[in-house]
């Protein structure tokens, strides 16, 4: 303990205010103000240990360093009197690799993750093996889906963004992952993970641990993505397309797989389908990004995703629909939702691919793009295009006021109010003959808290869509102008402060009998 000095950082030189430094002389000690390390001891839980105490005596002239080596006694009755276990109070040093244990250490620690053995997964003694009275096994939530070889794999990024093929898909856990993979045109037919066969090769076991019933993975649809990103759905999806080299390109590379598993209430898998996105790589491509998804549906049900029950849940999409001849139709597909423009990396409005993002309850969003206008831009065409861009193809007319509003309840649907303002600060008596182009769309959703004080539910009361327009020739002050076009969604809480409701005061029901004042009345 007397030799330990934590503050002695400079070799053969005196560290400032380090009273335990052996390189310091008495003259240097006299220049110190305090001792940065006043005491050096071992583990304080030992009953008796040596302690080195350093202090500065500032009374003496010049100041001196005092060094004392004392026995530090721990008064606690639970102090360690003896520790017969050598490594008890210190860190364990890891194994030093020698020629004997090198292979074993390399296998354990050699890859990007400290992997465990694949074999140990299939015989898991303390996993959720559930069997009912007949001894049949069934899948439970979170259990890896077994195939004939090992598991249904959902490659996902581990530690870095490179794909690891060892991630099993868990039953009833909807997952979506994205990862990168190293590819090259030369090795295109040898890399297993970019070929369709790798994903549909082994069949899934219908029940846990039972090899009798197996479900083949069928190919549901194939979408082919060209080099510039355009996707086409193939008409026939029966043919298995394997990676082949064609004209210095490697085609039929798997860019995305989406599994859909159908299960029964008894925990059995009865159907499995996979949809693929195939793409192509050139000689310059070094890596591709693959995306994987798995979703589960119970047999004989058609799941309708609600956005809340009954009030909206923050983060779920706002449900909207149309009202042809009487009843509003709640559209459960993406096209009928309330959506706003999605900002893309290509900020030019006219080149935008029309990507839209659904409006999620409670999340204020703002997005936009930039419009380049020249003197030659045609106003009417531009106005129509921009309105289309801002509102989307099917801008709904009604918004559901509760997360679970049904189509039959007409009163549960709130109509969208459309407002139109103009960005003009012109003299009002000048007739606005210039044509206006919409520059922004603001959707304001007003919601209130509804129901009990303890568990208030969110209810949409009012939706207003305001389109702001500006005159084209006002905007064109130079040769070419870039105008920002924005669209935003704002959620405002207009709930009135809670008032406690009291029960009605009890009334005292006293009535005089009919003939109380008998002789006189």
């Amino acid at each position, binding site marked *: 303990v007397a030799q330990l000095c934590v503050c002695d950082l400079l070799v053969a030189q005196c560290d400032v205010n380090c009273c335990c430094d052996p390189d310091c002389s008495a003259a240097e000690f006299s220049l110190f103000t305090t001792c940065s390390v006043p005491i050096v001891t071992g583990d304080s839980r030992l*009953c008796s240990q040596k302690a080195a105490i350093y202090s500065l005596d500032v009374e003496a002239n010049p100041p001196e360093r005092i060094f004392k080596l004392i026995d530090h006694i721990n008064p*606690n*009755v*639970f*102090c360690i*009197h003896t520790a017969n*276990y050598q490594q*008890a109070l210190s860190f364990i040093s890891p194994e030093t690799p020698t020629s004997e244990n090198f292979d074993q250490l390399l296998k354990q620690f050699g890859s990007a993750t400290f992997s465990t053995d694949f074999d140990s997964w299939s015989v898991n003694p303390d996993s959720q093996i559930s069997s009912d009275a007949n001894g049949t096994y069934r899948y439970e939530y979170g259990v890896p889906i077994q195939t004939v070889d090992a598991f249904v794999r959902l490659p996902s990024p581990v530690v870095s963004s490179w794909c690891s093929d060892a991630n099993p898909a868990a039953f009833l856990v909807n997952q979506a992952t994205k990862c990168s993979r190293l590819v090259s045109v030369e090795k295109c037919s040898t890399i297993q993970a970019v070929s369709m066969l790798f994903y549909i090769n082994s069949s899934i076991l219908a029940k846990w641990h039972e090899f009798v019933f197996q479900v083949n993975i069928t190919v549901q649809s194939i979408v082919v993505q060209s080099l510039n990103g355009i996707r086409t759905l193939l008409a026939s999806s029966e043919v298995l397309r394997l990676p082949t080299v064609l004209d210095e390109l490697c085609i039929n590379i798997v860019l995305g797989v989406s599994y859909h598993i159908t299960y029964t209430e008894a925990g059995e898998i009865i159907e499995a389908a996979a949809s693929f996105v195939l793409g192509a790589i050139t000689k310059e491509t070094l890596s591709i990004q693959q995306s994987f998804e798995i979703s589960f549906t119970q047999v004989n049900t058609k799941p309708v995703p609600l956005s809340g029950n009954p009030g909206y849940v923050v983060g779920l999409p706002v449900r909207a629909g149309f009202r042809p001849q009487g009843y509003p139709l709640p559209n459960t597909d993406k096209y009928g939702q309330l959506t706003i423009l999605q900002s893309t990396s290509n900020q030019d409005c006219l080149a935008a691919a029309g990507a839209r993002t659904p409006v999620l309850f409670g999340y204020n969003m703002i997005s936009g793009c930039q419009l380049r206008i020249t003197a030659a831009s045609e106003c009417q065409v531009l106005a129509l295009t921009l309105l289309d861009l801002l509102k989307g193809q099917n801008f709904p007319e009604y918004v559901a006021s509760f997360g679970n509003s049904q189509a039959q309840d007409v009163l549960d649907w709130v109509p969208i109010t459309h407002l139109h303002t103009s960005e003009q600060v012109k003299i009002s008596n000048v007739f606005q003959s210039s044509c206006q182009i919409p520059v922004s769309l603001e959707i304001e959703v007003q919601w209130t808290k509804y129901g009990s004080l303890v568990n208030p539910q969110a209810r949409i009361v009012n939706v207003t869509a305001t389109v702001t327009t500006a005159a084209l020739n006002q905007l064109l002050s130079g040769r070419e102008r870039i105008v920002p076009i924005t669209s935003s969604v704002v959620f405002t809480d207009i709930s009135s402060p809670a008032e406690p409701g009291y029960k009605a005061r009890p009334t005292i029901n006293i009535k005089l009998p009919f003939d109380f004042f008998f002789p006189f009345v």
Partner: protein
Amino acid sequence: SSVSLQILFYVNGIYYIFYFFATLAMIVYKSQVFSYPDSFLAPDLALLLIMAILEALRLYLGSKGNLTEEEAPLGLSLVLTVGSALLCVYFLAWQTYVFKADVILSAVLLFTYGLVSVLEIAAIAAFVS
């Protein structure tokens, strides 16, 4: 039959119950607070259990021998006392972690064993003759 030996057996029994539970609790505490690998924890717990069994046997034999005034059970009890004393020394000095409380409890137990041994030898001598 020696009254003081009987009293001592009784006191020993009660003290040992306290000692057993205190040591067990301290082993549990040590396993949570310190690094106590299974290969060290298992022997400690096993020896504590063996000590409890030995103790029960020893006290029963000794008490029976004293009350019926027979030397054989008392002699056997003496031999078992030696075994228990060895185990007590283990818990005093050779355990994985020895607390000051462990030292105190084991020392008192060893002192009790010493007294019991002396009185047992005296009792055997009295019964033989």
